[in-house]
Every structure is written in C-alpha cells, then in structure tokens.
C-alpha cells in the first residue's frame, strides 16, 4: 500500500478526498466586520475586488457596445467619458492591485509559516480603507462621475473644465486606497522580513512571497508621488493654488511626471504578484522544481528597479528634450531582458516535466502565451519614434490589456483555481473551469488582437464614435463580439466558484501535492494556521515532508524489530 501511495505522490495529483466535514465560514457578520484574522481579511479582499471586477467588466462591455458600429449613438459623450474613467479606475485601483493584496493577505503568512500578519489590526485597516475608497468613488455615480480618464490629466481635471465633484471623488479614492495600500505594504514587508518559519532563509522564500515583497516595496516608493500629485490637484481645485496652471507659473507636465512616477511602477505592482502565482503554479503541475529559482527572484527585483526609472515612456509625445526621451527609451527596452529571463525560466520549468492539464495550469499557460504578446508590443512602444505613431491609440489599449488582462487577470484566475481548495476546503469544478478557460482565451484574443490593427489604422483611444474609414467598422465589431465571449467565460468561473462553495468535492489539506507550506495545514486553515510549524530545509518544504513521511513508513519499526 505504501509503495503505491509513493508512486501516486510523484505521478498523479488527483485530489485525495478526505471525507470529513468542511468547516463552514461563520455567518456572524460582526465577526467579519471586526476580524483581524488575515484569512478572513484576505477573503473579504477577494470578494470585494472580484465584485469590482464584475462592475468594471460591465462598464467595459458598455464601452465595447458603444464602439461596435461606427457613428453609434447608444451613449452620449458625457456618459462615455464617465464610463472609460470608471472602468480604468475600477480595474486599476479597485481590482488588480487589491486582488493581489487579497491573495497576499491570505497566503503570505501561510506560505512563510506564520500565524498571522505582523500587524493584524493595520491589516484590517488597509482593507477598510480600500472599501471606503471604493464607496467614495462609486458614490459619485449619484451626482457626477469624473470625465477625465483614469489618468485625470490636468488641465482637463482642473476646476475650470470639470467643476463638479467627480474629480474630487476620484482624488479621495486615490488617497484612501493609497493609504490602505501603503499600510498593507508595510505590513507585508515586516511580515515577510520577520515572521518566516525556522529555516526559511531568503533563498528558500516562496517566489510568490518574493513578488509580494517587491510589490510592497514598489508601492511604498511610488505611492507618495501620486499622493502628492492628487493633493496638489485638490489644492488647485479648491484652495487657489496654481501648481498645474501655466498661466500662473504652474505646469501641466508636472502632473504627468508625478502621475507616471507612480503609474508606471503601478503596472509592475499589478503584474509582479501575477508572476509569483505563475511561478508557484507551473512547478506543481509540471511535477518539477521551478527552473532557475534565483534567476526568477533576481529578475523580479531587477524589473522593480528598472520599473521605477521608465515612467516618462508614457510621455514620449509631450514636449520633452531628446536626451530625456533617449534615457527613457533605453531604460524601457532594458526591462525586456529580465522579463525574457522569467519567460524562459517558466518554459524551462515545463520542459521535461510531466505536465498535468488542470485548470490552474491552463490559466498559467494562457498567461504565458498571452503575456508574451503584451511584452513584445511593449518593445514597439518603448522605441519613442515608433511610439509617436502608436501612443494613445488602440494599439496601446491592446498592449496594456494583453499585459493586465492576459497577464495579471489570467494569473489571478490561475491563482483562484489553485488556491480555492485551500480557502474553502472544496475543489472547483474542472469541466466548468476548462470551459471558462477556453471561452476566456478565445474571447480575449478576439477582443484585443484586432485592437492592435484598430490602432495602426489610426483610431485614438477614448473616442466614443468614429467614422468608418479603413476597416475600423469591421475591426471594432469583431472586438466587441470578442468582449462578450470573454464576459461569458468570466461568468462561467464566477458560477463555478459560487457553486463549488457548496457542491465542490472535499479537497483535503493538499489536493495538488504542492510544495509550499500553506498545504501543510487543513483546508480551510484553522484560526492559528498551523498546529506546529515545521522546520524548512529547502525551497520545497512540503516535498521534504512527504519524503520524510515516506521514509518513515518504509523503514522497519525499530521497536518491533
């Protein structure tokens, strides 16, 4: 018996169904409101951010509906501008960044063998700040949502051009979610730096924790810039200062520099934890150790460092000296080197493995194939004379959706399918998962691949209507159809998740035969995470533990012998 178990360990990660009751999450809402348990906070983060993902998705579908045919009059210009602003803001500030914090909150303490975050109460604070920011921003739909795009460039966002309260709501959203993220980041940093299990040296830290650590450092460095930027905007709007008004000695370029000093690292804040999820998922389903652990960790740090120095590549068309353009072009191009290292290492992880096609792996591979396209189009945009043609067109829209939707969101879905059993004690449905994946993949590429051509054909971003010149009508119709296919795919996963909460097969502590410590405890984990924290001896502690169990089972009992 023991021998056959040993062979299944390395070969078939079929969930071992452990027939016991899955503890139900408490229904006492006061418990949830006042909790400082990192797992409950993580769940609340995930529920809230996925809700915002749904809202942002509906906004996206409305935008695509408006653009489906030329000269459409479905939405008026005001509503359209409000929609693009809300879609962008929601996805960036209320979904992709905090959803990573959600996974981080739930899994960082578990992965490093800690019993909670370093500052549990601050952890709760950062969640409630996010919730408050979302509430403040969405309250503006009852009067006037902002109309200036998610970048809120001055002078359009100044009081002269948008006197109503929408921009103010946006400013407070940035402040509140910013404080939340800052507090959360400090918490992550302190937790990872100080609360690792015995034996977990820096070189044995799970790659997901490395990326969350980098995410935190980037947030700590970048958030002050946007906090300053929006504070200056607030005083410009209400207290008579003129930081951004050229007529009074201010400069609209100042806004762009401050905004993108935050805004570019923000891109890496959004995708790096996604890279971390991929680095966790691929080895499990290839049944192999991650290829080049140190190279991946080092490239994460390199990307973060370079990511802080490339912000002005969003400003290649502004009046800037050539030397500035050249510097930012070169630094942007350099980012493709560590990113390439990551992609090669991931493929190296799959190479000579025994790849098990479960849903988390499908999403991870979908991420790999898709993110590559986003990375390559990034090189086009980094070269500033080429960017002069591509900037602010649908080519850019396609590029960053390939990075953020095909990249970060596919990684998040991979993480969702991968960690759902740990969080709920139940597996998600494989069949629905696969249907969802293929629908999303087809929908995604139909939506966004053709948008490159829309941009090359001369269609700028953020326009509610266009003339049917070239093939814009056809391209846009294809894109809209794709968006709805994508929407259906996402809906299938939502249904899957909700259904599996009650009806999923019971997962047991370690359904995937995974390598990191979170699988050492029950699913879902008890309040203090671990009965006993094992000593970590390698980068794959669970593998060591299983080997140890196998050794002990096989060796003759010294007492009876």
């Amino acid at each position, binding site marked *: 018996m023991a021998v056959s178990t040993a062979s299944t360990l390395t070969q078939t990660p079929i969930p071992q169904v452990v027939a016991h009751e899955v503890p139900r999450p408490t229904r006492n809402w006061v418990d949830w409101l006042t909790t400082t348990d990192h797992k409950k906070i993580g769940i609340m983060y995930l529920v809230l951010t996925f809700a915002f993902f749904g809202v942002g998705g509906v906004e996206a579908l409305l935008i695509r509906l408006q653009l489906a045919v030329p000269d459409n009059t479905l939405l008026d210009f005001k509503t359209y*501008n409000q929609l693009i602003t809300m879609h962008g803001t929601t996805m960036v500030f209320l979904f992709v960044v905090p959803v990573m914090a959600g996974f981080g909150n739930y899994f960082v303490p578990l992965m490093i063998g800690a019993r909670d975050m370093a500052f549990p109460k601050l952890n709760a604070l950062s969640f409630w700040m996010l919730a408050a920011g979302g509430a403040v921003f969405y309250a503006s739909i009852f009067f006037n949502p902002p109309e200036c795009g998610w970048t809120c460039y001055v002078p359009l966002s100044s009081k002269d051009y948008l006197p109503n309260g929408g921009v103010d709501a946006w400013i407070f959203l940035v402040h509140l979610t910013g404080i939340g993220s800052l507090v959360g980041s400090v918490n992550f940093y302190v937790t990872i730096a100080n609360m690792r299990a015995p034996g977990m040296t820096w070189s044995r830290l799970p790659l997901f924790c490395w990326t969350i650590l980098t995410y935190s450092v980037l947030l700590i460095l970048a958030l002050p810039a946007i906090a300053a930027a929006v504070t200056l905007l607030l005083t410009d709007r209400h207290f008579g200062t003129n930081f951004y008004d*050229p007529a009074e000695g201010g400069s609209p370029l100042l806004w762009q520099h401050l905004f993108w000093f935050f805004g570019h690292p923000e891109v890496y804040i959004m995708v790096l934890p996604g890279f971390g999820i991929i680095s966790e998922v691929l080895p499990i389903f290839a049944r192999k150790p991650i290829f080049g652990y*140190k190279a991946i960790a080092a490239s994460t740090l390199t990307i973060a460092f370079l990511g802080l120095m490339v912000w002005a590549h969003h400003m290649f068309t502004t009046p800037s000296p050539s030397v500035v353009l050249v510097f930012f072009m070169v630094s942007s191009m350099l980012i493709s080197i560590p990113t390439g290292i990551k992609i090669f*290492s991931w493929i190296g992880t799959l190479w000579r493995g025994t790849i098990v096609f479960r849903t988390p792996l499908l999403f991870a591979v979908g991420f790999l194939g898709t993110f*590559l396209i986003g990375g390559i189009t990034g090189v086009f945009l980094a070269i500033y004379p*080429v960017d002069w043609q591509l*900037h602010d067109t649908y080519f850019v829209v396609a590029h960053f959706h390939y990075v953020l939707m095909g990249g970060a969101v596919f990684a998040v879905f991979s993480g969702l399918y991968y960690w759902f059993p740990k969080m709920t004690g139940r597996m998600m449905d494989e069949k629905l998962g696969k249907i969802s994946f293929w629908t999303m993949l087809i929908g995604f590429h139909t939506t966004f691949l053709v948008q490159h*051509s829309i941009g090359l054909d001369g269609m*700028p971003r953020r326009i509610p209507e266009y003339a049917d010149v070239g093939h814009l009508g056809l391209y846009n119709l294809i894109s809209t159809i794709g968006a709805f296919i994508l929407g259906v795919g996402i809906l299938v996963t939502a249904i899957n998740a909700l259904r599996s909460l009650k009806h999923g097969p019971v997962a047991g502590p370690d359904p995937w035969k995974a390598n990191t410590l979170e699988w050492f405890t029950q699913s879902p984990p008890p309040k203090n995470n671990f009965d006993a924290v094992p000593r970590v001896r390698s980068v794959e502690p669970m593998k060591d533990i299983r080997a140890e169990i196998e050794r002990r089972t096989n060796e003759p009992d010294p007492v009876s012998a």
Partner: protein
Amino acid sequence: MRRSNRIPHLSRAAVLASASAIALAVLLTLLLAGPAHASFWAPQHGGSPNADRIHTLYSIIMVIAVIIFVAVEGALFYALWKFRMRPGAKAEQLHGNTRLEIGWTAGAAAIVLVIGIVTFIMLPGIRNPDDSDADGWQIPASYQTAKDPGLLPPNGKSLNIDVNGQQYAWRFVYPDGDNDRQNNVTAYEEMVVPTGTTVTLDVRSSDVAHSWWIPKLGGKADALPGYTNHTWFKIPRGKEGVYTGNCAELCGRNHANMTARVRAITPEQFTQWLARQKAAIEAAGRGAQQYRAQQAQNDQRSQQGDASQPSGEPVPSPSTVPNDATSPAAQR
C-alpha cells in the same frame, strides 16, 4: 485497474477547443488580411518621409518580434505537447542550468542591443526635418520662424505653421516673417500646405491638452498649454490631396469630433492660395477701416446735428465684409 484512465491529459474537448481557437484565429487573419489593408500590420505612412521611416523602423522590429514570438510560443507549445502527463513518465528533477540561464540573458540583451542600434541609426531621419525639394514652394527668406535652429531643415528653410489646439478645433496661423501679427494668414479646421515643401509645426494649446496627429504625416505632438511642441512633414509632389487625423489626447466631451485636416496642393496653387488669403485679409482690413471711418463720421454728424436722429445708418458691418481668411466655410 488501468491507471491511464485516471491521469488527466489533454481531453478530446480541450484538443477540439484549441483546434477551433487556432482555426478561428487563422480565419480572422485571412478575413482581415485578405483585403490587403496595409494598416493591419503596420502604422499608416506614405505622406511624409518621417512617417515612412517610422514605418520602416516598425517593420524591422516587427520582423524581429515575429521571430521571437514564433520561437518562444513554439517552445512553449512543444513543451506542453511533448511533456504532457503520460503513464510512466517521470519529471526530471532539475533546478536550473547556469550556463543556459546566462546564455538566454545574453541572447535577450543582444536582441535589445540590435533593436537599439537600428533605432539610433533611424532616429535622426525621423526627428530632424529634411530640406524642401527643389521643385517645392520657394520659401521667402523671412519665413524662418523656429527659434531653435535644430528644429529646422539643414538649409534653415521651412514653411513654419503655428498649430493651436482649442476645444474642439485646431487653429492654423501662417506667420509671414514680419512683425505684424494681424496680417498673418489664419485658418481653422483645414491646414493648406504646398507639396514638396518641408512644413514645420509649432504645436501649442490654449486650453487643455490635445495631441496633433495625422497618421500618414508622421508622429504625434502633444499640445500642452504653456509649452510649444514641434513636428514636421513633407508631402511629396504628386501626393496632393487631403490627409486627416484625430486629436489623440482626451480633451473633453467632444474629443472624438476634434478632427484635423491637411490639404496638400501644388506649390503653384499654394502661391495663389496665399495671395488670395492675403488679399482677403487686406480687403477685410480695408472694410474695417471704412467702417470705422464711417462710424467716426456718423458720430461727428450726430454730435453736430440734431441729437434725436438715430445714428444707426446702414453702413457695412465687419461681418458682411467678405472675410475669406477667417471663415472656415469660405475655404472649402
């Protein structure tokens, strides 16, 4: 018990789905590339040397990108197919390979270096204006208006046009070199330029940020209040016609309708057009002078004569004076 039943592998449904996804992608590509629409693969060009050179640079990078794309995706799909879970297969427990890792880092760096070198070779031709053609419009010596000689063609001669973005239209002013800014030719909506002639643009804004962009005439230049941005184009002889574009920076509710038009005409026609505009401005100026003189006379008369007489005599008002230069309708 047959273990292979229990091993998850590429199910028939997944194979079917991937096959149909690939088929769909191929079909769409054929459908779209079928009309042989150039802008499916590359940015628009053909109106100006800088647009053409950007197109060339883009195409070079595209070739490199396609090679990388095919190689990496190929490796990925090969790995997924070749190393899929099969009964009895064992994963190689390999943690890394330093030589391989250094190798692909160096490879990636080499590709970046090549792209960088190509870019720097192409850059001056895209950024710096060319001289006008010999058979272009003969630019009067007084027309050198760009302060920075680096923004002018090597011979220092270009038709410099002041482009001013305003919610939601572009205003074009043709400075003629003298200090009188009142007599400069001005146009809204449509910029008229001679072919074979280098046109340099000073791009400004008087309200919010806009972006000047005619895809076939080269790259964008943001119009930012408080700043002057520069770009240039030279439409070749024989490519007379209308070139259009959109404002490319969100500038408010009517952003989509802030279009830009450049009408290229032959240098001979341009000389005539310019003369007509100048004449119209002079006529307008004369009309305004007449009107003012008439008003002054009326005022005098009403002061001298009986005060009860209404002073509003039918005099030509400025709006009825044919004002070719400022009325957009007159330029069509």
